[in-house]
């Protein structure tokens, strides 16, 4: 895949030696990686490896114990959590975090929050400027609705939608932010085979047609090898391997982390006297 080639270009996201400790637990321990503009970069690893924690560090839900995260030349660790979105980082959640008692359209409009142009009093009196802004936002949102084929669900309440559709709505809401970097936390979890395939195409299109860099956490190796340019394998908060999908999958450390080493297997075997 071509987009990954330019390792000499300035990285869009640069994570340097980040660690976060919760008491004695080292959830993430000295992890470093760069994400180049225009690539799809995937984090893999067994449960509890610290993948989602890395996401939460980038979106500033957690503060790192040490280390630096630079996004487009801005030091993220010095930003307030809500400022990260304004810089152009959008994310989805492992367990869908949509606004349940609002319609799909309203959810997507909330995704436009970082682009709001009206103040409180403009909103209160619904001035002509506020009206124009509302119509403009709607145009933007409709483009995403077209892109992800959500027109049918536009006015449905989230609370009544099936899981697979919610997953797409969450992706749509992130796209409405017009981000530079999209963080996808397990985009295929809870989806069936067809839906996963659909998701793979959308990730592909997001990168190719919208030019958005994607950083994702994913367990489905089929999806990972289909769309990723580079893969980072983690275990117990540390980096195991980094490279293209095939190399990482073949890495002995990765195999051991997922399946356990051969000596582990023998230790599990029941001894027969």
């Amino acid at each position, binding site marked *: 895949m071509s987009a990954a080639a330019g390792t000499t270009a300035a990285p869009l996201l640069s994570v340097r030696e980040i660690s976060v400790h919760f008491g004695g637990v080292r959830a993430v321990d000295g992890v470093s990686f760069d994400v180049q503009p225009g690539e799809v970069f995937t984090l893999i690893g067994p449960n509890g490896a610290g993948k989602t924690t890395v996401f*939460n560090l980038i*979106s500033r*839900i*957690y503060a790192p114990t040490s280390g630096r995260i630079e996004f487009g030349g801005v030091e993220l660790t010095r930003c*307030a*959590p*809500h*400022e*990260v*979105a*304004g810089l152009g980082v*959008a*994310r989805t*959640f*492992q*367990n*869908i*975090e*949509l*606004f*349940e*008692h*609002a319609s799909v*359209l*309203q959810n997507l*409009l*909330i*995704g*436009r*929050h*970082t682009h*709001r142009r*009206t103040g*409180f009093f*403009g*909103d*209160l*009196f*619904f001035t002509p400027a*506020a*009206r124009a802004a*509302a*119509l403009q*936002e*709607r*145009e933007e949102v*409709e483009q995403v609705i077209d892109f992800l084929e959500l027109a049918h669900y536009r006015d449905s309440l989230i*609370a*009544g939608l099936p*899981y697979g559709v919610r997953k797409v709505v969450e992706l749509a*809401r992130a796209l409405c*932010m017009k981000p530079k970097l999209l963080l996808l936390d397990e985009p295929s979890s809870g989806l069936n085979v067809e839906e996963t395939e659909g998701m793979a195409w959308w990730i592909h299109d997001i990168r190719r047609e919208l030019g958005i860099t994607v950083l994702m956490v994913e367990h489905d190796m089929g999806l990972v090898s289909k769309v990723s340019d580079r893969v980072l394998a983690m275990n117990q908060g540390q980096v195991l391997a980094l490279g293209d999908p095939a190399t990482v999958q073949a890495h002995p450390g990765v195999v051991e982390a997922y399946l356990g080493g051969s000596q582990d297997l023998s230790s599990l075997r029941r001894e027969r006297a």
Partner: protein
Amino acid sequence: MRFLFKTSYAQDIALARHEGHRFWYSLLVVLLVAAPWLLSEYGLAQLTFVLIYAIVGLGLMLLAGFTGLFSIGHAAFLGVGAYTEAVLVAAGLPFPLALLCAMLLAAAVGVVVGLPALRVKGIYLGIATMAFGFVVAEVFARWESVTGGNAGLQVKAPAIGTWSVDDGVSFYLLCLVLTIVATLGVLNLLRSPTGRAFVAIRDSEISAQSMGIHLARYKTLSFAISAALAGLGGALYAHMIKFLSPDQFDIVQSIDLLLMVVIGGLGSVHGAFLGAIFLIVMPQAINAAKDFLPEAIGMAPGLKAAVYGLVLIVFVLFEPMGLYGRWLKIRTWFSVFPFYRRGMFKRQKSFQKSERLR
């Protein structure tokens, strides 16, 4: 069944979505304007109270129903508005200016109370606001040089220069205009980014934050708007009741206000109005029913509180969406007849939530 033929995005942000809305709400406004000539003096006074409580309800609805922050101390904002109005009008300030000051002071107090809301959630916020309510009620009772303490405070009729709003009809019309303005303001907020940010905070704070919504700013804003509307309602209440004493703004009043929005239907503007009607009509209904009840029940002290409690329990159990939710169901039943299904409004149980942070 109505089929909406949408041809422009402007239709989705219009306040009245179709001819039905336009017709019924125009009719409602006409009836309300004509009310002084249709109702008895007593009926008009009750309607004025409904409007005043509806303004307070709108504020609390914005806070509890749309931002998801429950306040069990809202009577305090009502009181701050009422006393500010009474004191300023007595000092000779023109009425609109006093009204504005009452709103601003209540909003300022709201911001102060909103600060703990940034740290505590749910039931703990309820306790914090309740404690605040007690503090304010105590201040009303003890700060005798300003509030007259437990002896109470007389309120002058609202006046601008020599023109005074002292009869029931003109005061009713004043309340009506302010109610309409407040309602339009709230509706405008709800169809714009500010209102959507409130809804986002209500449904998922973690997600709202990663959409770039400044949680502290919007929660404080919600408290301020809510308190300002309560202050406006309080100022009108002061003129309506003409005599203020601290016991009008105690915990029972706060609970009545919360009851109003819950029974009206959390998360709907209609709910604030239906709740206000309930709050005013219910005591009348209980009084009327007393004559038909056996004496042991009809004359029992605390009958009103017991009935309110019972109604609240029934609503929480059987109609969590309140009176407005019930109305939606009835309307849907007629509009899709005979295809209404029991499960139509059933909410799916939500899926596992992300680990809540902080």
